[in-house]
């Protein structure tokens, strides 16, 4: 049930660009990620840094998952076939869990 958490773990050490909902874009190396898709970046460089002078001295940062709009990824580091398979597995697991949930409710009402 954690397809994108696992996906981001495969990208640790790679260069990514995190675009926040306030339009700030942070380029850096993915250091770590957690279940909420909170991200820690190292060697941070602000894209369009002239617009964000307050970030000049930031080298490492923690980004709350909920403020992320996009993460730009290097296509070469993404295996799309693995993603397709993982999505199908995830969808199947969800369906099974939903079906099991419904079943439990029915039993209780009896």
């Amino acid at each position, binding site marked *: 049930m954690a*397809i*994108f958490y696992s*996906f*981001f773990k495969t990208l640790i050490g790679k260069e990514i660009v995190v675009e926040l*909902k306030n339009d700030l874009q942070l380029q850096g190396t993915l250091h770590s990620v957690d279940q909420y*898709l909170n991200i820690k970046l190292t060697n941070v460089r602000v894209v369009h840094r002239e617009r964000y002078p307050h970030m000049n001295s930031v080298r490492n940062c923690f980004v709350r*998952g*909920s403020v*992320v*709009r*996009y*993460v*730009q*990824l*290097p*296509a070469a580091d*993404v295996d*799309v076939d693995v*993603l*397709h398979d*993982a*999505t*199908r597995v*995830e*969808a199947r697991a*969800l*369906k099974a869990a*939903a079906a099991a949930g419904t079943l439990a409710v029915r039993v209780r009402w009896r």
Partner: protein
Amino acid sequence: RIRRGGMGSKSKVTTAIEEPLGLIRLSLDERVYVKLRGDRELRGKLHAFDQHMNMVLGDVEETLTTVEVDEETYEEIIKTTKRQIEMLFVRGDGVILVAPPLRTS
């Protein structure tokens, strides 16, 4: 599973209930159109998604739409800005809708 009959009682066509995410699943590895909050649209190849509508899209074009109002004529000027991104993770809380690409693309 829902059994759907035709007019006669003899037809035995069964259709599995397709919940909305199941319909998106049909578009895996196909190009899709995604409408996002903030007057943004994406067109790209759907590689992955989850129940939150988090997605990974490939070969993406993002279209940003802005409306400027002319000070004198009060005319509305609609502008679009486009951007190409080779591989993109999209956080689900910004997604409004997912559809097959519109014919204008």
